[in-house]
């Protein structure tokens, strides 16, 4: 029972941390995609969507290459900060972040696009800078959709397996997430333990998706 709680809290914590990482990157990016046209936009859109469509282990392999000690980022961190990513909790957060990023950007973009550009335009004529418009008009009106998007991405992060198992392994007490532990229990033939984790996973997923859908049905106020 102890182990189960540890796995659950670790998974929740890692998923939360991954949200903290991708939200500040995803929101401006979603805004750029929703409101502006720029050269290379379609290529960026495609690259962002890749982890959503590619087999998770393929994404995991790419991350392994980049974040490993011999990799572009991994070697830099290892040499200058004596910090490792692969096989540590950082790899878990990285895997969760990368795999839920496309879903987050997609949802945020839809939420932002749902705000009438005319409202933003009028705000500009009233003397508001683009930044002020974003914080006083766009964000409040898109808030529900944004939260729904974060909840959905969080749910995705909770269930992430393929990339996680590749770059973080399944080190007991260190990188054991819900999904990866379920797999291990199956391997070990401990089906009861596996089913317990499955039940927990389903509950989380159910709540998250329901919450996300409920928030997504914003009440539209006609002016």
């Amino acid at each position, binding site marked *: 029972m102890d182990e189960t709680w540890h796995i659950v809290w670790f998974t929740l914590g890692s998923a939360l941390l991954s949200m903290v990482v991708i939200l500040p990157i995803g929101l401006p990016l979603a805004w750029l995609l929703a409101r502006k046209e720029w050269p290379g936009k379609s290529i960026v859109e495609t690259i962002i969507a890749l982890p959503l469509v590619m087999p998770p282990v393929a994404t995991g392999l790419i991350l392994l290459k980049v974040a490993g000690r011999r990799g572009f980022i991994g070697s830099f961190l290892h040499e200058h900060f004596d910090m490792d990513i692969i096989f540590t909790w950082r790899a878990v957060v990285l895997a969760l972040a990368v795999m839920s990023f496309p879903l987050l950007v997609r949802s945020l973009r839809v939420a932002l696009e749902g705000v009438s550009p005319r409202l933003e335009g*009028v705000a*500009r004529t009233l003397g508001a800078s683009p930044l002020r418009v974003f914080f006083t008009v766009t964000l409040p009106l898109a808030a529900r959709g944004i939260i729904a998007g974060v909840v959905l991405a969080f749910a995705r992060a909770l269930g992430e397996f393929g990339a996680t198992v590749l770059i973080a392994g399944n080190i007991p007490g260190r990188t054991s997430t819900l999904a990866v532990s379920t797999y291990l229990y199956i391997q070990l033939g401990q089906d009861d333990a596996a089913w317990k984790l499955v039940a927990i996973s389903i509950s989380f997923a159910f709540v998250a998706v329901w919450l996300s859908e409920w928030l997504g049905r914003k009440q539209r106020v006609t002016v």
Partner: protein
Amino acid sequence: MIYFSAQVFLPLNHFPLEVAFEARDLVTGVFGPSGCGKTSLLESICGLRSPTRARIELRGRLLADAAKGISLLPEKRNIGLVPQDLALFPHLNVRQNILYGVKKGAPTIHLDHIMEVLEIGSLLPRPIHSLSGGEKQRVAFARALLASPELLILDEPLSSLNFALKQKIVTYLIRIRDEFKIPMLYVSHDPLEIMELCQEVLIMEEGKMIHRGKPGDLFRSCLSPVH
């Protein structure tokens, strides 16, 4: 005197918008069928659209000049806009809406004066969705006015109202014109509104200005109000 001048060239879907005029009257009307480019013209003057070529001057202040590479941001042009759907902020109440554009330091138009002219004092704490059509209209005017614009652009503000309400609101517009004396550009497809408010009207068709003159002269044939 010339209140403002605008020369705009902007390719649209079916034809280019090519307009050049100077406003020598306080209220200039723009009349034309839907799709003739009126809204694009307004957006270009406000700075919400970037025309291919433009030269816009407001009270001697250069807002845009493509040749010199100048194009002021909308928030710097000091042009108020009341769009067709009013675009009131649904998440703010009436008071927050109308105070949105008030600049600290130099409010040349006072809240009390506006509330008096437009009779919206009792509406201040109300949420937008609880207002009637006419009330929303007045709130939209108030919001634009409180930002102390040097030019006020109204895009078919009365088109969604019924006849009785239209008459009522027109009286408010006349009040605004006479009280605050701010230059206005008034777009409409209703000749009667234009005749009541505007001193001059530009007639547009397919992106071009085909006539300009006094509303009375141009609309002489439109005396019967069947439309």
